[in-house]
């Protein structure tokens, strides 16, 4: 746990912002798909979990939209304001498969873990294709990485007309993040894809059991410990709430 000053903020799409934090220990150790749990003085009671978007030298970045009052407060922060930062938490993507190509599929805020994923895939010697989808061109994240980048919009205003999943080619290793409905479609097409899921979270450290993820084999485990990255076919998508505000923000 460390006290991290805000170092900057910039807009990367309509309503989507990146916040930078000085967090050396986390920047040094975070892996793609892991998250930080952020809290602040006079903030809401519970921390808010965010995938780490970038990690360079002593800095990390997270990407967010104003979904509720907590994220709205974060977006009102100024350089120098402090966020209590717990992490890196959870289990990230696995790049040990020996695949030659990595396909990153993101929808809306699902870009969150993908910059780090692209970096780690390259380190593992893979060619990176990134397919990014959003409702409209204005909501496509301006920051991306990949040897090939494919756009998809629901209204056809940029790139392929349709979903990111539909626009994606087939390949060895598929990593995905986005709204739960999108991830359910990923699971249909690529059962072995690795997907980063989002849930409400209490503690982020494995004790409260609030971030239950329903499993196909029955029972639940914890997005904050066993997740947030899962094999797509292991999740019982019909039992994972898809109506919650965070799950429908695209």
């Amino acid at each position, binding site marked *: 746990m460390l006290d991290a000053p805000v170092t900057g903020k910039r807009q990367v799409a309509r309503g989507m912002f990146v916040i930078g934090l000085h967090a050396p220990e986390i920047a040094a150790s975070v892996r793609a798909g892991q998250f930080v749990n952020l809290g602040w003085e006079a903030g809401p*009671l519970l921390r808010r979990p965010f995938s780490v978007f970038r990690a360079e030298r002593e800095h990390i970045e997270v990407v967010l939209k104003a979904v509720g009052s907590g994220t709205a407060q974060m977006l009102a922060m100024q350089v120098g304001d402090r966020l*209590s930062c717990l992490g890196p938490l959870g289990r990230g993507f696995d790049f040990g498969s020996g695949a030659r190509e990595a396909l990153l599929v993101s929808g809306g805020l699902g870009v969150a873990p993908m910059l780090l994923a692209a970096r780690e895939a390259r380190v593992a010697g893979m060619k990176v294709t990134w397919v990014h989808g959003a409702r409209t061109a204005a909501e496509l994240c301006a920051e991306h990485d990949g040897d090939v980048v494919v756009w998809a919009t629901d209204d056809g205003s940029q790139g392929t007309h349709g979903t990111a999943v539909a626009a994606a080619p087939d390949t060895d290793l598929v990593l995905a993040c986005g709204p739960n409905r999108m991830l359910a479609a990923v699971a249909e097409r690529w059962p072995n894809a690795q997907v980063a899921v989002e849930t409400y979270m*209490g503690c982020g*450290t494995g004790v*409260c*059991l*609030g971030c239950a993820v329903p499993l196909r084999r029955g029972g639940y485990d914890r997005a904050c410990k066993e997740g947030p990255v899962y094999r797509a076919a292991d999740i019982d998508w019909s039992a994972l709430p898809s109506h919650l505000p965070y799950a429908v923000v695209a």
Partner: protein
Amino acid sequence: MSVAIGAMRLRGPVLAASGTFGYGTEVPLLERGALGAMVSKGIFLRAREGTAPPRIAETPSGMLNAIGLQGPGAEAVVRDYAPLWAEWDFPVLVNINGESASEYGELTARLDGVPGIAGFEINISCPNVEQGGMFFGNDPRAAATVTEAVRRRTKLPVWVKLTPMVSDIGVVARAVESAGADALCAINTFVGMSIDLNVYRPRLSFRTGGLSGPAIRPLAVHLAHQAARAVRIPVIGIGGIARPEDALEFLVAGCSAVQVGTATFVNPKAIAEVHDGIAAFLEARGFPSLADLPRYLPRD
């Protein structure tokens, strides 16, 4: 700052509340150094899946939870956790649950004598199960029956965690004291509901949940005080404690120790900070020990 809870001597007055510290093994982030004792996540005799998500919802200065006592059951606790607890330098009590008094008794019998298990906290106050839980805790006779069922099967310390969802907590407190409880824990969560206006339904899949956090603290101080006035056995205060002064309110109100719960979710160092802050308070006010702290316990 050691305290006595019945025959049990604890090295400090700040304990980890059930359901907020897992089995104590989850993360190195959770600091155990200042713990007086830990109460495990609530378990049943058999494994339970728990409730469907969403299980938690944040509310003003608090949170609702309906986890549904997800857990691996007694055999797994005996096999996987108790051997670790036996090595620790503070006691671990197991929070026990059942759908009937006899099931509480059976669970106690299975756990009694297992190295690493120092005592029991009877949960007759969980609001998030279909059978048992709170339904025992808001009926003084049922509460006493469960307490007796456990008491008959162990000589280890037996604490009873009370529900706030009663019209007179003193009645239940006296009933379980008479049934052989060594201490009371007051209180468990309040039953609450929050509605999602996007879909016109409760924010929790279980519909209702247990409200915890600073929102309930004044209610909890009041109920812990009432319980402490009603009985001679020690009362352990619980409810929204996040800072040292919160804990001190419970101690002055008549509690012998406190449990910190929801605050641990936000601040993994909460227990250590509360412990150190109590010590600093005692020193700053010139009290040689915790026992010298003034207690507000008027008896009618």
